[in-house]
Every structure is written in structure tokens, then in C-alpha cells.
């Protein structure tokens, strides 16, 4: 039984260390998913917490200025330039922006809201949505085709 006790103790140590690393990792790394509306309603919390904001790039708003890139995000994909709910974003991370990042692209910005109301992003993801889903009018009719 002594062997099993030793073995159990070692297992406990390993699992304990890993659990400690994991819990610490979560609290240091957690990012809150928010929409633009939610960010604007968060108040002071928005300047403290790490946020991940989802939106669409307003056409023509992307401006490169040295290594930094600024653009405007809006919330409703159907409204494009007319959407009143917008968020100014400045990206100054090291990774290059993805090739899919362009006007109208669905974009996820990670970072914190600056006190001036401009979102300071350190990571930008963009999805070229049209490549992955069929247009709504292109409905397929599986049942009839299989008859």
C-alpha cells in the first residue's frame, strides 16, 4: 500500500500544480464578449476589463497611420454606413491584420476601452463571412432532389 500512497501523493502534487496554473491562467486571461451596445452601457467597468467586441467594419473607415490602424465598427450588418451604433477602434498590435479584414468584414476586436471612448485593440480577427455560408436566396431543396 505504501507504493500506492506515494503514487497518489505524486499524482496529487501534479494535479494540484496544474489546477493552480489553470485557475491563475483563467483569472489573468479572461476576456468578456460584448456587443457595441453592451460596451457603451458598461460604464467604468469597460476601461478595466478585457473585452472582445463583435461588429462590422464601416466602409471606408480604415486608416493606416504608421504601424497603427484605426477604423470604425458598427453593430448591425444590414445598416452599413447608416448604423448609429458605432465604436472607434485603434489597433496597435504587432501581428499583421488578417487579409480578410476589409470594408464590411465581420470583425472581432480584443482590448480595452480607452478613457477617450476609443477602443484600444491589441488583436483583430476578421471573418470573410460570405465565403462560408450560402446567400439566403440560394436555398437548396434536398428532399425534392432525392426523390
Amino acid at each position, binding site marked *: 500500500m505504501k507504493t500506492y500512497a506515494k503514487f497518489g501523493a505524486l499524482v496529487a502534487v*501534479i494535479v494540484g500544480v496544474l489546477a493552480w496554473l489553470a485557475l491563475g491562467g*483563467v483569472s489573468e486571461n479572461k476576456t468578456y464578449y460584448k456587443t457595441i451596445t453592451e460596451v457603451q452601457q458598461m460604464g467604468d467597468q469597460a476601461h478595466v476589463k478585457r473585452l*472582445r467586441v463583435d461588429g462590422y467594419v464601416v466602409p471606408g473607415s480604415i486608416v493606416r497611420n504608421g504601424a497603427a490602424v484605426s477604423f470604425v465598427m458598427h453593430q448591425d450588418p444590414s445598416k452599413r454606413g447608416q448604423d448609429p451604433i458605432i465604436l472607434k477602434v485603434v489597433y496597435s498590435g504587432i501581428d*499583421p491584420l*488578417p487579409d480578410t479584414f476589409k470594408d464590411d468584414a465581420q470583425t472581432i476586436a480584443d482590448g480595452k476601452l480607452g478613457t477617450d471612448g476609443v477602443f484600444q485593440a491589441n488583436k483583430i480577427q476578421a471573418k*470573410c463571412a460570405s465565403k462560408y455560408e450560402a446567400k439566403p436566396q440560394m436555398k*437548396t431543396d434536398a428532399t425534392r432532389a432525392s426523390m
Partner: protein
Amino acid sequence: MENIGALSILLAFCLAVYAVVGSVIGRLKRNPFLVVSSERAVYSVWALLTIASALLIYSLLTGDFRMGYVAAHTDQTMPAIYKFTAWWGGQEGSLLLWAWLLATYSAIAVFTNRHKFRDMMPWVTAVLMATETFFLILIAFVLSPFGILEAGRGNIVEGMGRGLNPLLQYWTMVIHPPMLYLGYVGFTVPFAFAMGSLITKQPGEAWIHTTRRWTIITWLFQSTGILLGQGWAYAVLGWGGYWAWDPVENASLLPWITATAFLHSVMMQEKKGMMKVWNMVLVSGTFFLCIFGTFLTRSGVVSSVHAFAQSPIGKYFVYFLAIGIAATLALILDRVKYLKSEARLESVVSRESSFMFNNLILLASCFAVLWGTLFPVISEAVTGEKISVDAPFFNRINVPIGLGLLLLTGVGPLIAWRRSSVESLRRAFFWPSTAAVALMAVLAVFGVWAHPYALMSFGLCMFVAATIFAEFWKGASAISVKSQVGLIPAAIELTHRNTRRYGGYLVHMGIVFMFIGYTGAAFNQDVTKEVVPGGTFQLGHYTFRVTNMEQGENGNYTWQKLQIEASSGASSLGIMDPERRFYKASQQPTSEVSIRRRLNEDVYLNFAGVSSDNQRAVVQAYVFPLVTWIWIGYWVLAIGTLVCLVPSKVRLSYARTQVLGMAQKHAKVTN
């Protein structure tokens, strides 16, 4: 045409259901005719799905744009190879590929075992075809690959089609998905044999011996698929990374981790009759993680850069997983008494315990990755707030796990079964430890001490490499003296005598090379500059001078290209030419990075864009030390895996080690 395709899928579905019902009833009623006819149904399912796939490929190649799938995933100008790969470019087609591969694997498994395991095979057939039925439900009734566009119904041709994302038009992307599928789908076979063995209460390890090759081959496919994905990300995406802990990447990693654990822990069962329940759990876990990965990638549960769209198939996967896991668990619990361990753990310092620790930390890693990936879902369910964790979380936990595994990679194979004496440990590990400490001391002097994890990783790589080298050296020099041959032929002879053991060492060596490559990432350097022709900039000891900026246009895209002369000190390293393209059809820009690959470090230039006033080019320059070793490591791993598949010349090594006696002697004779 599309009617024949859809009809084949429907018929395949009926036959798959028949095969499940027929083999179960045939087995229970002891009716051999029913059993054999169910096995023939398996071949028919394969034939029908082959017809369906051939028809889909034909439609893709000939550009039948009436079909929704063809129009959505190809266009007229695409090269034929990419039209072909559109087979798995979208949801419906890739599900058809899944189903076809599973049918192929099932047909092979049933055919090669048609005279063996008459007891167990009907159950194996039933499990395989139950899984097949699930995928056929999806493509027969939910997402048919043969749907016709409504616009196409009145002979209004949609036109050109929408094409394939230009980022995916790259050679590794052609084979990356089918490789991963081959790996995922293949694990259904060991799972089916495990279940068959459990249901029929087989006393021995027949299922493990029969499926060893399957497991190793599918593991190699999984590894290849993952590595191809990494290679693609590095060479195409322009940020120079190969792993971002994205949910889809994690989905492919999870079953690989449990499969790796399974490959190791089956040895405990083969040699000692231990960990029987655990192996059942691992093989089932791997199978369900494969299905779960497919689900995660397609259902849109977790947001990801390369997930497919939201689709209605998510709930089907949830049902299948829930029923499958519940049934498997119930079966394992019911049969626990047939899975009694035949030996006990005798010492903490033993081969047995090193296998257990290997499994423990692999599973811990799997759990951590799963937890991190599903964190947004879990947190939303518990707190109502969607919270995600990203790369730093995964690195924080997986880096120490990786180092622990690396240590075990060196220690495990040399430690004796049952228990090890201090003396034998000293003999086995004195030189490898000395080499590791010496290397760490030298590296520390050169400044690596600032990166403690990297320093440890290099030390452990040295340690493992030294133990592997020592093993080959010991065996080969003995053969060399005895049979009067050179060391290299002797090493080959040695490997051939026990391919499983020495092939395994080669795989470990491949892992060491990969770790060297991954560790190099601690020393990455980068700079982003806006430049004009004639301008220069510096990174590390490299100087870059922009000599020219050209632009042009062809039918497919417009392009801009920079010519940058790289030099180090006084010596010129030649011209690098990163390029930016803008694809007309898809209205999408892409970067064609320029990489100077060397064993010590890669220089990597990305033409990131043009400043808003259109005068200056934005260039990102990176230095990636040691990254080439990842790809080298993959080749060593692949060769090692193939060596494992060659039958051993000498068959002594897989008898059970029941012999009592000196531990070290043992370790020399057997693996």
C-alpha cells in the same frame, strides 16, 4: 445525375441500417447467413457512397452550377485540382467524404477479418454501421450535397460560381482536411473492436492486437493533418505563427492527445495486463472526441475564425454523442469485472508508473484544452456572461505539461518494469543528465537564462536525445562486434529486430526536434516599418534595403511586389520578394510572404499593406529561430511511425514479462 447521387445516399442509408439490425439479430439468433449478408451490406454501402462521391466530383469538375454545392464552392476559372478539393471544401461535401471514408475503413476491416473473430465481428460491424448511419442521416435528410438551386430549376444558370477562398488555394490545404479526416474516421475501427470485445466478454487482448496497426496509422494521419495545418498557417497567413489555440485547432488536437495516451497505455495491457478499464475509456474517449471535434468545427457553438457557418446539424451531433457516450459508459461499467487488472503497481520508480504519469499529464493537457475551448459556453451557462480565455492561458498550462512529457520521454523507455534500483538508474541516466546540464550551463552563459522555460526545454531535449542515442549505440555496437559489420548497418539490423521499440525511439526523436522548434519561438524578433524604395531598416543582425516596388495585373488578381535585399554584416543574403495580391473574383487581398528558411533561423518578410496616402509600403519583418526543426521533426516522426509498422524480425519482445529476476537484465531484453 443529382437524383442518382441522392438515391445512392438514400440506399446506402437503408443498407447501413440493415447491416446494424442484421448483424445484431444474426449474432443473437446464431444465424450465420444473416451475419454474412450484413457484412455484404457493408461492401454495398461502400460501393454506393463511391458512386455518390464520383458523381459529386464529376459535377464539381464539369462545373454543373445548377447544383447549390457546386455553385457555392467552385468557380469557372479555378484550376481542376481545387475544383476536385471542393469535395471537402464545404459542409455537405465534407460530410460525404466522412461517410465515404468510414465506409472504406469499414469495408477493409470487415474484409480482412472475415474469417476471424466470428463471435465479435457482428458487433464490430454493428458499431461501425451505426456510426455510418448517423452520418448518412445527415447527408440524406438534412444537408444533401446534391441539392439543386431554386434559381437553376427553370434552367436559369447561376453563372460562374463563387469560388474558393484564395487563402485556401495552397498545396498543404489540398491535403490537410482529408488527412485529418483519415485520422478522425479511422479511430472508429479500434473503437468498434473494443466495443465488440466488451460485448462478447473476450478474455484476451485480441482487439488490441488486431487494431494496433489501425491505431498507429490513424495516429500518423492525425499528426500529419495537424502538422500540415501548422505549415500552412506559417507559410500563408502572414503572421508567422503555426498555432493559435483557436477552437478548431484545439478540436483536432484533443483526439490526438488521447490517441497518444492510448498508444502508450495499451503497452501496459499487452505486457502486464494492467489498465484494462482505462484503455477502454481512452479508446472510447478518442472516438467521441473525434466526433466532438467534427461537431465543434461545424456547429458554430464556439466562435472561431475558420468555423463553418451556423448550421442545423449541431443538435444531431449532440444526440449522437449523448446516446453514444451513455451506451459506452453503461457497457464499460457492466463489464468492469471482466477487465480486472492482472498485476499491481510495485514501485513509483518503474516503467509502469512512468506510463501512468505519461497518461496522467496527457489527460490533464487534454482536459485543460477542452476546458479552455469550451470556457465561453461554460461561463455563459453558469454566470450568464460569455467569457473566453486565449493563447496565454493555454500556453501557461501546456508549456509545463509539455516539459513534463519530454522528461518522461527520456526517462520512461529506460526505466525497468516492476521496479528500478538506484544503481541501474545511475547507469542509465548519468551521461544523458551530464550532457543536459552541460548544455544548459553553456546556454545560460550565452543569455538563455532569461527564458527559464526555454532553458529547461533545451536541456530536456538534450537529455532525451542522449538517452535515445545511447540506446542505439549500445545495441548497435554489440551487433557490430558480434557480426563484424559497420555501426550503421548494425543500427539498421537492431531496428529491424525490434521495430516497435526502435521505431518508437525515432518517433520520440521527432518529438524532440519539434520541441526544439517550438522552443525557438521564445526568441522570435519582429519589426514593422513603413518604407519607400531605397529605404533601409534593421532587425537583429539583419539589414534590409528596399530596392524596388513593382505592380501588375493578370486575369485572376492584381499584385504589388517589393524587392528587398537582405544582408547580414557585410555579406548579402540575396533578394526577398514579398507580394500582395488582390483577387478580383472574391474581392479579397492576400499576402504572399517571402521566407528564407535555414536550420538556425528563418527570415520572414510580409508585405502587410500600403499606407493610406498610397506612397509607403508597410513591411513586417520577423526572425524565427529554429522553426525549421518542427518540420524536420515531423519527418522523423513519420519515418519512425512507419518503422513501427514493419514486422519485427525477432518476436521475443511481446511476451508478458512474468519472469522474476534482475530488473536491468529485463530492461535490456525486452522493451
